[in-house]
């Protein structure tokens, strides 16, 4: 039944794409984020829908779309360099088979992110992509949010529709992404034109944001909680009545704490006790190993080179009895532990050049968002009132991503590359609009052409 549903849905979407080719770009974004082939049981698994959708999106753009407004930005160039460099390290990888498996999806994510801004020529396209992206993530987040609210959460046990916890379906990743998209959801609810602001739109948006906040609770991913606290701080800073919202926030937190599952509060308590936590102490060991590895291999070891690590360390275990607490030091040996940080993932796999490119891309995205925000914050032009809140939402989402990245290996996450592509699209679009408005004919011939 679910197979049939996806087939009807995709057929309908491809049908709409025949009328408006840009919708094919949205279809590929949907397939990349939701992965319907993983949610279906048989039918969709046997069809290469991802390839079909990409070919359709690219073909539609090449044949039917107007390319006069297309611009290739510096950040697209950086992504292209990163793609080429990842290809180089894959050819010289320490673990060629594993590296090739990761390369297989990373190159697609990067290529699509390079292509995407070329299609974002109008404001409505930017909005449509943002809307489809958050709704796609919502497929996973709303399920997780409702299950958490009904008491179905737990570390590694929250069922997000699939057993295979890769891509956005992994607990820590979806926690970071769920918090990162909250500003964008609120922006779309307030400034959207596809679903213009109304009582129902706001109701859905607030419910959606609630589900996003429940995801770190349901998955018990500590990174999500850190991200939520930072986002709350950033959003509070931009409110007009700071004291009122601070009071309301504190009150909401006090009311919410008794309803949190005890396993969640116990796990969150370990944030400050990293020595007693195997997961956290392993991370520090992996990071030290990565620094040492890069010292000897500054060009990186290719995808999944963390498989080479192995270390023995001691961790502290507390056993509580009725009248005492027994503290024991246990020796643990670990092999092939993942990086658990995007920064170290990039550094270990792509070396110093890869990390530099990736940092330039991410910091560039933040700087451009901040520039857009400052430029249009006080605009008198009603046409551009959406720009500053959009830029602010993108900046806040990206800061959350970069903080979540400290503890989660999401350096090549396709959803994040799409967020960067969306931001590039908005920047190039506004730059073009500004140039059009600033243009003045120098000679009489130009004036004649304008007046034509």
């Amino acid at each position, binding site marked *: 039944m679910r197979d049939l549903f996806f087939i009807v849905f995709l057929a309908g979407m491809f049908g709409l794409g025949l009328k408006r080719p*840009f919708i094919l770009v949205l279809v590929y974004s*949907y397939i990349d984020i939701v992965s319907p082939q993983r949610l279906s049981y048989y039918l969709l698994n046997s069809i290469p829908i991802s390839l079909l959708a990409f070919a359709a999106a690219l073909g539609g753009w090449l044949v039917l779309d107007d390319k006069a407004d297309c611009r290739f930005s510096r950040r697209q160039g950086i992504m292209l360099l990163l793609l080429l460099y990842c290809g180089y390290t894959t050819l010289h990888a320490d673990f060629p088979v594993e590296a090739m498996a990761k390369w297989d999806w990373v190159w697609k994510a990067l290529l699509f992110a390079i292509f995407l801004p070329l299609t974002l020529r109008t404001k409505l396209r930017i909005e449509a992509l943002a809307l489809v992206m958050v*709704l796609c993530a919502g497929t996973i987040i709303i399920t997780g949010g409702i*299950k958490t609210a*009904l008491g179905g959460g737990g570390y590694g046990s929250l069922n997000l529709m699939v057993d295979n916890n890769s891509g956005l379906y992994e607990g820590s990743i979806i926690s970071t992404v769920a918090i990162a998209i909250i500003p964008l959801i609120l922006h779309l609810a307030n400034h959207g034109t596809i*679903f*213009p602001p109304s009582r129902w739109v706001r109701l859905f948006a607030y419910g959606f944001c609630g589900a996003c906040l429940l995801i770190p609770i349901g998955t018990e991913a500590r990174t999500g909680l850190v991200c939520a606290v930072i986002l709350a701080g950033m959003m509070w800073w931009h409110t007009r009545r700071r004291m009122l919202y601070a009071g309301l926030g504190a009150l909401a937190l006090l009311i919410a704490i008794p309803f949190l599952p005890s396993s969640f509060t116990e796990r969150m308590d370990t944030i400050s006790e990293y020595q007693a936590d195997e997961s956290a102490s392993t991370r520090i060991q992996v990071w030290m190993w990565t620094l040492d590895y890069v010292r000897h291999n500054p060009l990186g070891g290719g995808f999944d080179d963390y498989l080479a690590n192995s270390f023995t360390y001691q961790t502290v275990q507390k056993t509580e009895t009725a009248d005492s607490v027994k503290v024991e030091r246990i020796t643990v040996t670990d092999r092939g532990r993942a990086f658990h940080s995007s920064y170290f993932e990039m550094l270990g796999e792509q070396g110093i050049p890869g990390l530099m490119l990736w940092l330039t891309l991410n910091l560039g995205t933040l700087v451009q968002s901040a520039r857009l925000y400052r430029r249009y914050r006080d605009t008198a032009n009603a046409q551009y009132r959406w720009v500053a809140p959009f830029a602010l939402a993108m900046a806040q989402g990206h800061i959350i991503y970069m903080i979540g990245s400290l503890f989660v290996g999401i350096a090549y996450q396709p959803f994040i590359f799409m967020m960067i592509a969306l931001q590039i699209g908005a920047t190039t679009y506004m730059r073009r609009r500004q140039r059009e408005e600033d243009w003045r004919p120098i000679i009489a011939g130009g004036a004649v052409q304008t007046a034509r």
Partner: protein
Amino acid sequence: MIDTFSLLLTHGLIFLACWRLLGRDDLDREETGASIDFLGRRRSPPADERTTPGA
């Protein structure tokens, strides 16, 4: 049950959003006057193709 509800809700909204895009001219073209091409030259669309941008 929850999975089905979530799938129907989000997929319904995605489809509705794309359906609404069909009727929007500003999806593909929004310039009221001329645009500037990649060489910095001004390009004026024919008068009958000019449309107003969306809200």
